[in-house]
């Protein structure tokens, strides 16, 4: 026993010494440090022979990048707002960007350092969340639609009504996050996805409550397994991920319902008070380089808002109507903007009621 304990203790000592050394090694060279906060699995990281984007940036600019990941916009917002963490770069979605702009949490970008911003497609230049395009450079975008199994449905589910259809009872999956779920109900009832009208929101909540009787369950990433294995017939999800699922199971297809849908944009921003603002802008520029952008888009499978990256993609991807839908479809889509606090709270309360009941 004694031996075991002394062994354990010495192992710990070694561990600590090693840790101390490794931290010394990196600080010894006095490299500039850039701190990036991104979604998980949202950058080409060198796995499966892809390009390691972070490493490439570190080498090109001789800097050190601290790279951390988050799972939701709200998680990222809470962490930064609390003051517990300092990051230079964040990549929030549309509505979160407008919230952060309103709360003065983002820096205006100096576009002299981001010449590649010239490649941003016109559709993504003057967006609702960042009207003058001063705070953000778009990274990815995509639509929300219905992933369905062709062998399990009687007709193409081109209306959100399909997610309420009795004949598919027990075979329907639904978003487990409130904003996306309410967005679907809002489109079905013909409301704006950014409505602040309490009666409209309550009507959506009633509709979502009704849906519960035909649902199998509420999901996020479990949807990949359930759809690939044929355990469910219908599920709303993001277009790029639908393509990933379709590669695994050829019975699957994707459609954006006629009532219209949501189009999300994730964009790169610099956090207020960043000590490396110029380097952060160079990083954003680097992410927009053709080769880098292409590697990222191929890894993530979402759509690119950059013309140069789009041009470099293979023909099959470029012509895929799921990833790059036509103007007509996009004109039926809406993107989220930030809602006032009381609307957010109302939605959250109603959503909790729906989930718990």
């Amino acid at each position, binding site marked *: 026993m004694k031996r075991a304990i002394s062994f354990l203790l010495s192992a710990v000592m070694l561990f600590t010494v090693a840790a101390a050394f490794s931290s010394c090694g990196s600080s010894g060279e006095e490299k500039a440090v850039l701190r990036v906060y991104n979604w998980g*699995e949202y950058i080409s990281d060198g796995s499966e022979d892809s390009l390691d984007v972070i490493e490439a940036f570190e080498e090109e600019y001789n800097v050190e990048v601290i790279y951390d*990941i988050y799972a939701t916009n709200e998680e990222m917002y809470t962490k930064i707002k609390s*003051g517990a963490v300092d990051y230079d770069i964040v990549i929030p979605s549309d509505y979160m960007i407008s919230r952060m702009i309103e709360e003065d949490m983002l820096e205006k970008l100096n576009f002299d350092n981001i010449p590649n911003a010239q490649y941003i497609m016109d559709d993504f230049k003057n967006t609702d969340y960042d009207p003058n395009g001063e705070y953000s450079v778009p990274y990815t975008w995509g639509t929300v639609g219905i992933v369905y199994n062709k062998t399990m449905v009687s007709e193409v589910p081109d209306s959100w009504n399909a997610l309420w259809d009795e004949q598919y009872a027990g075979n329907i999956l639904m978003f487990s996050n409130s904003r996306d779920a309410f967005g679907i109900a809002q489109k079905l009832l013909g409301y704006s996805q950014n409505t602040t009208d309490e009666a409209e929101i309550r009507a959506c909540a009633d509709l979502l409550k009704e849906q519960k009787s035909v649902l199998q369950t509420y999901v996020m990433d479990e949807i990949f397994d359930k759809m690939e294995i044929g355990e469910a017939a219908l599920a709303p999800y993001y277009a790029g991920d639908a393509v990933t699922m379709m590669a695994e199971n050829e019975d699957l297809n994707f459609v954006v319902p006629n009532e219209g849908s949501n189009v999300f944009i994730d964009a790169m921003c610099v956090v207020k008070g960043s000590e490396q603002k110029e380097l952060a802008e160079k990083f954003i520029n680097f992410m927009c380089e053709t080769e880098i952008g292409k590697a990222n888009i191929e890894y993530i499978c979402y759509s690119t808002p950059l013309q140069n990256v789009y041009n470099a993609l293979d023909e099959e991807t470029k012509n895929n109507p799921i990833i790059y839908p036509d103007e007509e479809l996009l004109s039926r889509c809406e993107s989220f903007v930030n809602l006032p606090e009381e609307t957010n709270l109302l939605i959250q309360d109603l959503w909790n009621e729906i989930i718990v009941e």
Partner: protein
Amino acid sequence: MRKARFFPKIYIVLSLLFLYAPIFVLIAFSFNESKSRAYFTGFTFKWYKELVQNEAIMSALFNSLLIAFLSSIIATVMGTIAAIGINSLSRRKRGFVMNLTYIPVLNPEIVTGISMMLLFVFFKQLMDLPLGFYSLLISHVTFCLPYPILNVLPKLRQMDPSLYEAALDLGCPPLQSFFKVVVPQILSGIVSGFLMSFTYSLDDFVITYFTSGSGFSMLPVTIYSMVRKKVNPQINALSAIIFLLVLALLIGMNIAEAKKAKKE
């Protein structure tokens, strides 16, 4: 020994299956060639290879192990000393201190997490001390501390106090008699307190989530952050390795104990 009847045997097999089936499925899919968690398309070691090359996951694993080791050692030392102090208190005082000890165990983790975060943010603004290694270590020691106390205290109460007094009577200095007489008798409590702290620290999510800073990520938070996109099969590979290591450790401990019992 009487032969076990048919039903109890089946029951045991079913219960074990219920416990272990998810882990076996997870291990099986760590060898799956495609990224799918639904179909098995072929056998491969590539996820293991990529796991070793994945700097983000490996550094998160290293950080988690480092924090788990350090915090459980510190908590065990502090907890053992505290237990000895508590044991020699009068009955009423002991009751009071024990209730204080139970609070961190019973308190919802999220309350501990947020209050610690507020404390660290306060320090950060006061002394420009960013959250990271130190804040995680302190918070992990904090929530681990009750476990060594709760494990060591019963051992101390079982112990005959006159043994320690006898050692003193025979001229052994207090510190030496503590190590030679007291520690061997409470060692099993210390070890189980250490192991409990270690496991709690390794898989804690909530408190870690709130008290981590930038640039020092821990494994549970890193894995959680992958849920928007599909969780990478490298995580399956990592879980398989951790499972096998724990299994090997348990088997090793059992063999060592069996050998010891034979000797006696």
